[in-house]
């Protein structure tokens, strides 16, 4: 979190030091306690007259609340100490600690901020309805409109005559409410599509990697020619903000560059045009392994392949290491995916190429050709079990005409409508009527 955005934390600390309750301070400055709570948790920006009023109530200069790297650092250290429940005497020595060991103090404060940020992400993801005022208001609007429709429709559906004036009025209300419901539903879907919790996910290395590759449309022209240095690419990227993200991005780009050297763009394009979409034939032409071919196909510019392709790579624990989404085949952003994917079948049959036609129910029922392989990765050593990674490429089949009947799969259990699935881990929010 940026230092200037920690004004709320400093307000909280100063309030605690002054022995004031949140409600007391809120009353003094004429705002609600819940709003002050949002300010104190740095969820609302604060400035102007409100800041001056708070500073006055706390008996400090406004600048004490808004600036000062060291003050911020010490405040964060005190928060960390409070969370760890260490003694007041030790907590009071935060200034001394920051003064004597500034670098270590920054490390500790950074770790504390990171934990707070992750806790917030968990909070947002696990209970968004409660913590997202826009979402809560939208759902409230939907349910209120549904209540009005249900109540009105029940009256109209009752047997017996209804006075004409009432009947007309209820019909009019029903029409209004149904329009409102349709608009509210659309607005909610748009909001959920757009919000993407991008800001909250900043700092999660895998998410940063994903934003980085998506920004380049999964293709890096600079790496199509030899001699390009990878380090400046990751250092200069606006999407990669953490060292961990830069490290995994550098590894991914090194692998991309190696694939590009073995299967140069021009030759690859010519080979695809000649043999068609045939990963096995391409691996024989270039004398390379199948996983590399699948990665290379997914990294080609959009005009080379006639149909869109997606790619998923996971390790032997099933954790997704890379995802290139494609319309009609949903890949969850986080959490466990559908165990019916050939990606996981491949892990149980290492080095055996798998090809299946798939369809995801409830997603427009597009049909995909899936190609998967699990291969050993990393250096080989005697008496050490190899580590495996599985790679799966999905290609949309135009017109849905697969050679074999497509197998129904999901994305993740929470949003999968297949209630009778033997692989189900948990109930779906769809079947629960969310």
């Amino acid at each position, binding site marked *: 979190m940026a230092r200037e955005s920690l004004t709320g934390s400093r307000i909280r600390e100063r309030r605690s030091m002054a022995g004031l309750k949140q409600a007391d301070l809120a009353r003094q400055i004429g705002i609600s306690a819940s709003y002050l709570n949002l300010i104190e948790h740095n969820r609302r920006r604060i400035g102007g007259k409100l800041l001056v009023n708070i500073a006055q109530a706390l008996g400090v200069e406004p600048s004490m609340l808004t600036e000062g790297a060291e003050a911020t650092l010490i405040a964060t250290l005190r928060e960390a100490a409070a969370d760890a429940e260490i003694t007041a005497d030790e907590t009071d020595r935060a200034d001394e600690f920051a003064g004597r060991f500034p670098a270590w103090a920054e490390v500790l404060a950074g770790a504390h901020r990171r934990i707070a940020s992750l806790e917030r992400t968990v909070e947002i993801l696990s209970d968004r309805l409660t913590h997202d005022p826009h979402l809560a208001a939208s759902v*409230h609007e939907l349910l209120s409109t549904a*209540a009005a429709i*249900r*109540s009105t429709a*029940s*009256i109209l559906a009752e047997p017996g005559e209804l006075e004409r004036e*009432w009947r007309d009025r*209820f019909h009019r*209300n029903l029409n209004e409410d149904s329009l409102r419901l349709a608009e509210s539903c659309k607005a909610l879907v748009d909001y959920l599509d757009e919000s993407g919790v991008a800001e909250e996910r900043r700092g999660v290395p895998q998410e940063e990697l994903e934003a980085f590759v998506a920004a380049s449309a999964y293709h890096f022209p600079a790496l199509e020619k030899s001699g390009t240095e990878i380090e400046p690419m990751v250092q200069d990227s606006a999407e990669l903000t953490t060292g961990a993200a830069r490290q995994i991005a550098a590894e991914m780009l090194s692998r991309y560059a190696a694939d590009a050297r073995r299967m140069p763009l021009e030759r690859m394009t010519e080979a695809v045009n000649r043999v068609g979409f045939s990963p096995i034939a391409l691996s024989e032409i270039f004398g390379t392994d199948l996983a590399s071919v699948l990665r290379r196909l997914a990294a080609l510019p959009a005009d080379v392949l006639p149909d869109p392709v997606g790619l998923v790579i996971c390790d032997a624990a099933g954790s997704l290491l890379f995802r290139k989404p494609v319309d009609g085949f949903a890949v969850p952003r986080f959490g466990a995916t559908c165990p019916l994917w050939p990606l996981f079948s491949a892990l149980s049959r290492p080095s055996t190429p798998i090809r299946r036609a798939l369809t995801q129910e409830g997603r427009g029922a597009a049909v995909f050709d899936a190609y998967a392989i699990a291969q050993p990765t990393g250096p080989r050593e005697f008496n050490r079990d190899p580590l495996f990674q599985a790679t799966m490429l999905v290609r949309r089949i135009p017109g849905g005409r697969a050679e074999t009947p497509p197998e129904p799969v999901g994305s993740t259990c929470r949003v999968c409508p297949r209630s009778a699935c033997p692989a189900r881990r948990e109930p779906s929010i769809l079947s629960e009527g969310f």
Partner: protein
Amino acid sequence: MSRHVLLIEDEPNIIEAIRFLLSRDGWRVDTHADGTDAVEVIRRVAPDLVILDMMLPGKSGMDILGDLRAQPDYSELPVLMLTARGQSRDRDMAERAGVSRFMTKPFSNAEVLSAVRDLVAEAPDP
């Protein structure tokens, strides 16, 4: 003499449906759509029962309920709370604040009617 309900709700078409439903059942129905002065309106109207929406402009139904229960005259007044927030912690909060019945939207007309009849029948004489 007809029994008297005050409906505090800001959704016009819910107001219309509930007003029709209760009037037909022999209740006198007053309505109010703002939370800010809801307690004053309750005092002025002196209903036998209040139907209270939880999310109101100006002041939340929960705060109105708290203010109401803080006054000895209204410690027993039946309050039926309507809400789109049906989470258990909202229900707990409402119960701790002294709600008589908690109903989540979208409710059925029969539920509302039955709750109003029961709550007024069970209420001690004023």
